[in-house]
């Protein structure tokens, strides 16, 4: 932390890991400069959680090396743990303990004295808006509150590196916004953050560098802007019910820009990538009205992970399924 730019805060080289016959990591390389956010983007089963577990010393890789805050994950796990805050996908809070007790326990285990642990727990409870619920068992908390408590636990020792494994999966929009704000505050204070996510938008909002992984390998990496340039902007889709109007609609959509529209012949649904969002929408609807073409189900939406994968790899997201990732997390 003292010498920014001197060496990466997070670095991994050629990490591989198999669980039985399944290859969870097939040579993952990562790097994050101090004080930046590294986003690891991928579908369920891509190897995100396995990567996180290796980097946070919870899982021994079959091959490869990794350093966190300058400590070798394999040779000096103790050093890594001292410099690391981890907040998992499944908030690992003790349901039988109150929020305050959870944080106090973690603070003491980080080596804080009794009084310091009490003070720090109080600060974090206030900072994460958990003061009112502080003395209630965390088992009674909502999903968002548990995530906040788990995140607070990761920050107890003010670690230089924080790892967040899918911090917003399953949260409502407000919970998501709260988490994003917390991450931004961390980075403003100079913390390096590694964040895994299934949401392109989240990586876009938070990450300085995004690494896209699938099948345990890196398929793309770059800044959000670089990847977006490859993925394209929003998707405009609409359905034309009458068959005669399809050709004309195709022409109109083709004229919008460089992106080619796609047509689902069965449903009559067109999808086209657009770089000018709402403006394009208005213009398109105007053209269609002039041509007396009736449309329904008009949607303008940001690219999904599927769209991104299609654009980046030329292939849709493979059917990894959530079971795969769960296996990776639970495999011992």
């Amino acid at each position: 932390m003292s010498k920014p730019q001197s060496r990466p805060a997070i670095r991994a080289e050629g990490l591989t890991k198999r669980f039985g016959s399944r290859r969870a990591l097939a040579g993952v390389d990562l790097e994050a400069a101090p004080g930046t956010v590294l986003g690891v983007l991928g579908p369920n089963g891509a190897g995100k959680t396995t990567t996180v577990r290796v980097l946070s010393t919870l899982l021994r890789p079959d091959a490869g090396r990794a350093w966190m805050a300058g400590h070798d994950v394999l040779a000096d796990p103790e050093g890594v743990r001292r410099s690391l805050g981890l907040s998992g996908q499944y908030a690992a809070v003790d349901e039988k303990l109150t929020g305050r007790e959870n944080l106090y326990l973690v603070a003491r285990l980080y080596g804080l004295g009794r009084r310091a642990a009490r003070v720090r727990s109080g600060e974090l409870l206030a900072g994460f808006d958990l003061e009112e619920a502080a003395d209630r068992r965390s088992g009674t908390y909502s999903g968002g509150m548990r995530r906040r408590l788990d995140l607070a636990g990761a920050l107890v020792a003010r670690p230089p590196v924080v790892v967040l494994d899918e911090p917003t999966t399953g949260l409502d929009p407000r919970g998501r916004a709260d988490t994003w704000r917390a991450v931004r505050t961390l980075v403003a204070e100079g913390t390096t953050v590694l964040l895994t996510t299934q949401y392109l938008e989240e990586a876009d909002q938070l990450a300085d560098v995004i690494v896209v992984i699938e099948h345990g390998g890196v398929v793309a990496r770059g800044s959000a802007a670089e990847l977006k340039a490859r993925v394209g902007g929003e998707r405009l889709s609409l359905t034309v019910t009458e068959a005669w109007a399809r050709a004309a609609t195709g022409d109109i959509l083709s004229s919008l820009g460089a992106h080619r529209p796609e047509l689902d012949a069965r449903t009559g649904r067109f999808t086209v990538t657009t770089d000018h969002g709402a403006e394009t929408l208005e213009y398109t609807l105007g053209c269609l009205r002039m041509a007396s073409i009736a449309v329904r189900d008009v949607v303008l939406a940001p690219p999904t992970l599927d769209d991104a994968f299609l654009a980046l790899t030329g292939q849709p997201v493979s059917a990894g399924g959530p079971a795969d990732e769960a296996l990776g997390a639970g495999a011992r």
Partner: protein
Amino acid sequence: MKAARRLARDSSLIAWRNLLNLRRTPGSVVAALVQPVMFVLLLAYVFGGSLGGAGYRTFLMGGIFAQAVTFNAAFTALGLAGDMDKGIVDRFRSLPMPPMAVLLGRALSDLTMSTVTLAVTSVCGLLVGWRIAGSAAGALLAYGLILLFAFAMSWVGAAIGLLARSVEVAQSAGLVWLFPVTFVSSAFVSTDSMPGPLRTVAEWNPVSATATAVRQLFGNPPPGGFPAGDAWPVVHALPYAVFCACLITAVFSALALRRFRRITLG
């Protein structure tokens, strides 16, 4: 020295957390306490009548103590497996503390639980007519020996809990061995009536040695028709029981720690 102090501090923090959990799960605590009480009543009045009556009820308690703390090992297995399942162990392991602290903390909280079990069981024993007939020092030593044995057995539970891949497996694997281990022994009957090989197993069973040593220390003689036998572990019950407890602790703590380090990382 610093490492030892840290292990002591972190283990007691984990034990504190485990005990808070137990206190807030009164159902499981009650279940743990009902079990020995049930065995006392069952053996004292259902089987006891034909096994020697009042004399048997006095004899019985040494076996009950040894059995009760052995059964508590199932708690260790379940507790550890549950913590792994819920990601609590991951959370602990991502913190800078010795791996042993998670296991030792569990063993310490289970030892506390065993102490409570012993107190309740003792009161129950007194109610059915059991008495401490030996010296106060002997009685202290007897309770000390049972707790030493409890500590040893909780490491067996820890190893089972870590080897099990789920709470469900830990639940059944943590229970099945308890019945043969506690019943193929002199905890409740004389080994004299058992067929040859089974008798040898029972005589060398640490549960037998613990029960026998505890009876001697409490001054509880076997009832008529319960020949003690003259096998070495029967004659030298106290030293053999202490030796077994230490050996079990050494072997199973090493096994549990090794397993734990494999599951997580160094």
